[in-house]
């Protein structure tokens, strides 16, 4: 598929028509007033899009190849306007950057970090030299957001006899709950000549970031995710009561 390099068209076109009320919400949420409609005969062309139903890796890659700023997966049930009312940490549309919003059910097992790093590479932001560190940190942040954030499972579950079985069962149970499964994971990437910044946002209960381990703790079965992030990223910030992890990489 040909790419469409157009900074005036930040959103991806994946559907024939977007309801007017949704268009208005996107405009309000993402401050797209600076973007002009593309004159191709359709109204509000910048907003025709962004929506991928039941995202899988191939559909997301297809969406990315249209160079959108924002790519949003719809939740189950076709509640499209509701999907855009959810609290996915609205941000101004910036170039260069992109924003991916997935349900937890999709993000689990999708290897989002690989997908996002592929897209950062495709857009020229990430070199092969820096990719291993970025991908590892991003993977850990996304895993935390899914497991401890949206699925609400504590690592303490592993620290008991047969803990891994308990942990595995909790994962299956939570992923089987429609309300939990549709919670969002939002990944927001932006970059300039010297830095890549990636924010990973979940809709969980948050946590006290001061309690995360700063060094590898011997035989502990968990807690190394933040150790990796602090070792491999240039800076790590946790905001929004633990619901947002921002990784900075000097490149």
């Amino acid at each position, binding site marked *: 598929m040909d790419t469409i390099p157009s900074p005036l068209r930040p959103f991806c076109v994946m559907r024939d028509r977007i309801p007017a009320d949704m268009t208005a919400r996107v405009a309000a949420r993402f401050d797209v007033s600076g973007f002009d409609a593309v004159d191709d005969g359709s109204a509000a062309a910048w907003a025709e899009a962004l929506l991928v139903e039941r995202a899988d890796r191939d559909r997301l890659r297809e969406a990315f190849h249209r160079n959108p700023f924002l790519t949003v997966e719809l939740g189950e049930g076709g509640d499209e306007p509701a999907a855009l009312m959810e609290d996915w940490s609205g941000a101004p549309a910036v170039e260069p950057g992109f924003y991916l919003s997935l349900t937890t059910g999709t993000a*689990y*097992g999708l*290897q989002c970090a690989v997908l996002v790093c592929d897209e950062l590479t495709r857009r020229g932001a990430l070199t092969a030299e820096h990719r*291993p560190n970025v991908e*590892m940190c991003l*993977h*850990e942040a996304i*895993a935390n957001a*899914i*497991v401890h954030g949206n699925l609400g499972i504590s690592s303490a579950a*592993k620290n008991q006899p047969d*803990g*891994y*079985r308990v*942990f*595995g069962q909790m*994962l299956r149970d939570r992923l089987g709950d429609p309300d939990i499964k549709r919670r969002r994971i939002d990944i927001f990437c932006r970059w300039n000549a010297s830095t890549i910044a990636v924010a990973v946002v979940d809709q969980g209960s948050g946590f006290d970031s001061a309690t995360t381990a700063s060094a*590898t703790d*011997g*035989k*502990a*079965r*968990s*807690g*190394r*995710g933040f*150790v*990796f992030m602090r*070792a*491999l990223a240039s800076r790590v910030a946790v905001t929004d009561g633990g619901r947002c992890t921002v990784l900075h990489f000097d490149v």
Partner: protein
Amino acid sequence: MEFQSRSTPDALEVRLAGRLEFTDHDRLRDIIDALEGAKPRRFVLDLSTLEFIDSAGLGMLLILQEEAEQRNVKMIVSGPQGDVKRSIDLAKIGEIVTIEP
């Protein structure tokens, strides 16, 4: 992650392939079931074809070590490469688990 197991007269060898990560807890259970069934003297975990391991996967290595110890089985991790080796080194897993090149 996919794995293949092979029993020799005194050892169970399990070769992991692909990615060992937080979505693989059920596979861990399968490996422990294989360990329980084989009752070997040694348990060799071959990582030479493993491409990626995350912090949860490293925790699984430690769980496997504990499960082996409980059965008086010696666990050896062999052949980690590339990014997998780097993560194992970063987390200092070699101070706890026997690792062979």
